[in-house]
């Protein structure tokens, strides 16, 4: 075991899968010599050569469309979109084909590809470099949508995504890339796609979160414990689609109260689906309205103001307090 950042952990996953399986090809803008603008693909071209690590021309539809063809042929492309804000240049290839080829060909062809892309704010970046729009993918039938929250689960989930027989959109939080280190075992480790996790047990209120929001969420849980001796149960979704509703359903049946946290815009955001699922399956256990702590319904402002846009522990604590205040 060694302590790794999420960038290093993702790099390990790519390296080991490429060693194990010569069908795995990495492609994207600047993924070769440069090692990717965040260095996630660092060193891969030296180890595996330019036939397996492709610096592509500057064209996202080209990257995704070519990957679809590679996958149909029988390879396992892992493509990097430099920033999720530029994944829309390839949205037609993603929706029209990656999500449909298995279905269209009635099982003859499949698209076992991974679309890696950095999302989230918090790194003082330029316009288009700080968005969170996971709903575009989570709402699209035929895709899977995974969002890790730390080095260790990022590595394990990326391995699973690469081995998955279907297209996986893999959202990586820029804010987490180098935020902290975790022990990541050298030996193979995977996590099932489509399973959420309870990362903190509690009986008073349920906090449902994922990705870049896990740290403020856990921080909020700490504050709630210290300041008001409230025991919050914290769930990390890890996969948005297919969504695992078993844990948060159970949890809210126990706590009766919930706050859902995401950085994406509030309206028609991921939180709405969690609320709806809770209403479907835990309605009679609800003791208070479910709160959503989310990004606002405007474009995330340039970095001097982004900290007011991105939910933080304080905002989550306040929302939790309101939910707790309201009498059953």
């Amino acid at each position, binding site marked *: 075991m060694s302590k790794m950042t999420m960038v290093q952990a993702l790099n390990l996953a790519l390296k080991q899968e490429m060693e194990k399986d010569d069908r795995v090809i990495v492609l994207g803008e600047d993924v070769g010599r440069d090692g990717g603008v965040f260095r996630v693909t660092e060193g891969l071209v030296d180890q595996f050569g330019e036939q397996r690590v492709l610096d592509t*021309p500057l064209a996202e539809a080209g990257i995704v*469309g*070519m990957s679809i063809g*590679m*996958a149909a042929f029988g390879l396992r492309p892992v493509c990097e979109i430099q920033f999720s804000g530029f994944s829309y240049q390839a949205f037609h290839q993603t929706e029209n084909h990656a999500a449909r080829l298995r279905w269209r060909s009635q099982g003859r062809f499949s698209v076992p590809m991974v679309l890696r892309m950095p999302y989230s704010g918090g790194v003082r970046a330029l316009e288009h470099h700080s968005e969170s729009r996971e709903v575009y993918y989570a709402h699209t*039938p035929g895709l899977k949508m995974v969002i890790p929250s730390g080095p260790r689960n990022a590595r394990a989930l990326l391995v699973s995504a690469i081995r998955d027989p279907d297209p996986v959109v893999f959202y990586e939080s820029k804010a987490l890339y180098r935020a902290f280190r975790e022990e990541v075992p050298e030996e193979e480790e995977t996590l099932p796609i489509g399973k959420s996790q309870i990362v903190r047990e509690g009986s008073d209120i349920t906090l449902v979160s994922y990705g870049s929001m896990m740290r403020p969420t856990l921080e909020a849980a700490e504050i709630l414990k210290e300041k008001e001796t409230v025991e919050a149960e914290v769930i990390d979704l890890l996969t948005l689609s297919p969504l695992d509703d078993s844990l948060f359903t159970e949890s809210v049946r126990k706590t009766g109260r919930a706050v859902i946290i995401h950085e994406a815009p509030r309206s028609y955001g991921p939180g709405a689906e969690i609320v709806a699922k809770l209403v479907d399956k835990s309605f009679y256990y609800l003791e208070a309205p479910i709160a959503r702590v989310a990004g606002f319904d405007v474009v995330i402002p340039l970095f001097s103001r982004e900290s007011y846009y991105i939910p933080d522990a304080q905002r989550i604590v306040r929302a939790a307090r309101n939910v707790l205040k309201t009498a059953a």
Partner: protein
Amino acid sequence: MPRSKIDLPSQIDFLSILDAEGNLDESLEPDIPEEILLRMHASMLLGRRFDERLLNLQRQGRIGTFPPITGQEASQIGAVAVLRDSDWMVPSFRETAAEIWRGRTLESVIIANNGFNEGAQIPEDSHNLPVSIPVGSQMLHAVGIGFGIRYRKKDDVAMTFFGDGATSEGDFHEALNFAGVFQTPVIFVCQNNQWAISLPRKKQTRSQTLAQKALAYGLPGIQVDGNDVLAVYAAAAEAVDRARKGEGATLIECVTYRMSVHTTADDPKRYRNEDEVEDWRKRDPLTRLQKYLIRKNRLSDEKIAAAETDVKEKIQAAVDRAEQQMKEFGAPSDMFNHAYAEMPPFLKEQKEFLERELAENREE
């Protein structure tokens, strides 16, 4: 250091071997084995007659809307005739004749056009991708397949089809550029049938030819008489040779014409002139090939008549099989199949919901 002309190595040729009047340029005549030539004729005839039959099935409401291919038989058959089974074909939506040459069954075409996903099923061993409707989007898939072919050190090729309209999509640009950069063995076959629904070729782009767009990617491009099956065959063979040798991709513009409607939902009278259609009728690819084969004593009126009956029977048999199979198709809840390799829980729930609903409906 003044103003100097940059000389661009590549040039654009126009290739015609058998013209509308039946004149043959022997110096260019490709030598095609007799049985292949006859198979090409039979396939073009089948394509033509199948179109006619689909048209009247559609008028009778027995299938939905579909895109006819009449007039484009030579562009399709001339191109795929140079492929072998291990090669890949990446079609658009107007290559029915080519798909059939490559092994697609007629009944699957009928079934798909009647709104059953089963009709798009591709056999396990097939190297044909299913029909792709988003214009221009499929070319990139051919490039990815071409990359796979090189990566696995095979000498196969990927041939992809698209129309004149498709050349305006950004995906066309990205596909040809990637093919150039990665030197993939891809044959880009543009069926320039002069129309993109109601938009005439000249309004699609100001460039004089579509073939010259290859110059933007450092690729060879050639324009051929798309109603001359010998010219299409020769150009495709040349491109395939280069590709197999690892010399990369080629853009072939087949100048042809969409003799029929865009789809059966379309009414060309709104936007094009019948004279133009009549003009192109004189350049018909099927009769042109027939004249050639007759002149070479490889075909006769009797043989043509026989081929016609044979084709008619094949089509009738397919229509019968299709209607039989459609009766047998499974439950509506089959719509949940093939969404993912493994059905996730939330889809199981939805499938069960639908099955419950159907059961209740039967009770009521």
